């Protein structure tokens, strides 16, 4: 199904920057120090990066980060123990072979998660879906929150819903005293979110569900100017609120998979 895009195209390669940096550093080590040191540097980098990926997994519970952690760890270990030229002494000669097999298996797992968009931060999909039926109307922006209506849910349902959206990288929840605030994170913005969550929460759009059933929405200027045209701001806020109220409805009915289906149905790129 074809949906006209309302957001500007995204050409950022933020997700690839760590890998590119690592390979660049490895190449420099190879040129100026030596081949063995280059392999050692790259393997150490990947093992450290596996730790970082694991910390993201702990925060998001998204299994693609667990797969990435495993892949990075096994790749680093493979470089250290590769056949014939191990960088560290290996007691059993079958260990490198085992690591290689596990590495290939984790690669398949990671690619499966990548191509099924389970590793994708879905903020762009959220904003595309919210803007689908909206016409351009200029000069509507305001930084005021907009009450988006009321929804029915219990506190436990809201917490469960937050866990679901976090796990599928749809919106990151911030648990506050009397509400849960959801911040949709676009692909390419994930490191900004991960490294400075409070600032990201302040500067970006959010959808707040309080424990009395009130839903309010803020669309930030940064997210608003990411649209190709000045869309009717009031409708955009209303739609974003309704979208999340609808998501909550699906979650309460036990049809949460529909949320992911609706977002994936838009057919946006896997890296944008």
């Amino acid at each position, binding site marked *: 199904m074809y949906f006209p895009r309302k957001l500007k195209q995204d050409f950022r390669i933020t997700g690839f920057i760590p890998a590119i940096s690592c390979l660049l550093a490895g190449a420099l080590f190879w040129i100026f120090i030596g081949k063995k040191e280059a392999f050692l540097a790259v393997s150490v980098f990947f093992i450290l990066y596996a730790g970082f990926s694991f910390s993201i997994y702990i925060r998001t519970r998204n299994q693609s980060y667990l797969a990435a952690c495993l892949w990075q760890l096994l790749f680093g270990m493979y470089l250290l123990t590769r056949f014939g030229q191990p960088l560290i002494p290996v007691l059993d000669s079958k260990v490198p072979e085992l690591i290689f097999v596990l590495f290939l298996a984790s690669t398949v797992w990671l690619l499966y998660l990548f191509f099924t968009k389970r590793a994708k931060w879905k903020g762009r999909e959220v904003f595309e879906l919210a803007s689908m039926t909206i016409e351009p109307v200029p*000069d*509507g922006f*305001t930084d*005021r929150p907009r009450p988006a209506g009321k929804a029915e849910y219990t506190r436990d349902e809201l917490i469960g819903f937050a866990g679901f959206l976090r796990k599928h990288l749809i919106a990151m929840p911030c648990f506050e005293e*009397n*509400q849960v*605030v959801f911040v949709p994170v676009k692909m390419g913005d994930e490191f900004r979110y991960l490294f400075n969550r409070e600032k990201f929460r302040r500067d970006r759009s959010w959808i707040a569900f*309080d424990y009395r059933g009130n839903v*309010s929405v803020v669309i930030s200027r940064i997210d608003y100017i990411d649209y190709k045209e000045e869309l009717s701001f009031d409708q955009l806020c209303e739609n974003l609120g309704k979208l999340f109220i609808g998501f909550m409805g699906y979650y309460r009915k036990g049809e949460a998979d529909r949320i992911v289906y609706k977002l994936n149905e838009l057919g946006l790129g896997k890296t944008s």
Partner: protein
Amino acid sequence: MDFKEAAKLGSCLSKDYAEDLFRLLTTYKSISASEAASRLGLHIKTIQDCLEDLYSLEILDREEVYEGKRPYFRYHLKVKEISMMVDLSTFHLKEDATDSRVKMSIREMKNAKARFTTSRSNDYISNIVIWMGEGRSRTERKINLSIPQGKFLFHLPFPTAEPLNITEIMHKAGLDDAHIPEIVDIVDVLIEFEVIERI
């Protein structure tokens, strides 16, 4: 006594020399400004202004006298006691649900030069910062809002939304008619500062 007269009287009574001046006024049959000033060790203009204020409030009476030089005034007490009563109910804007101002349709103005800050609970606006002027002469004015006002502004229609009248917005915000005067007050202020437009 209206508020301005009460303010003037309050100002006279609050002077640190007021008690000594009234002591002189009760002791002397009549006294001139220069006599009182020299007696209290103050500048004549200071005492003159205070005596004139008390005269305008009809607490003192005065008579113009000539003693071979230019005329001057001698003051004496006209009353034996001072009482001050201010009717505060005159400040109350008698707005009710049928008032035309409550029926006016409003919404946030496009490109309003204001920043809204929400409360920690995110269900009302706690203050508004309004920018006035341009360039280097630009100044900020911060208005802290009462909770009913904040709830009202939280439900104010956006610049591109359909305008609503004050009663409708108050209903959406869950406010009762007792808050009408303070709501009308903040709406008037924000219309003046071009943050809200009246349709």
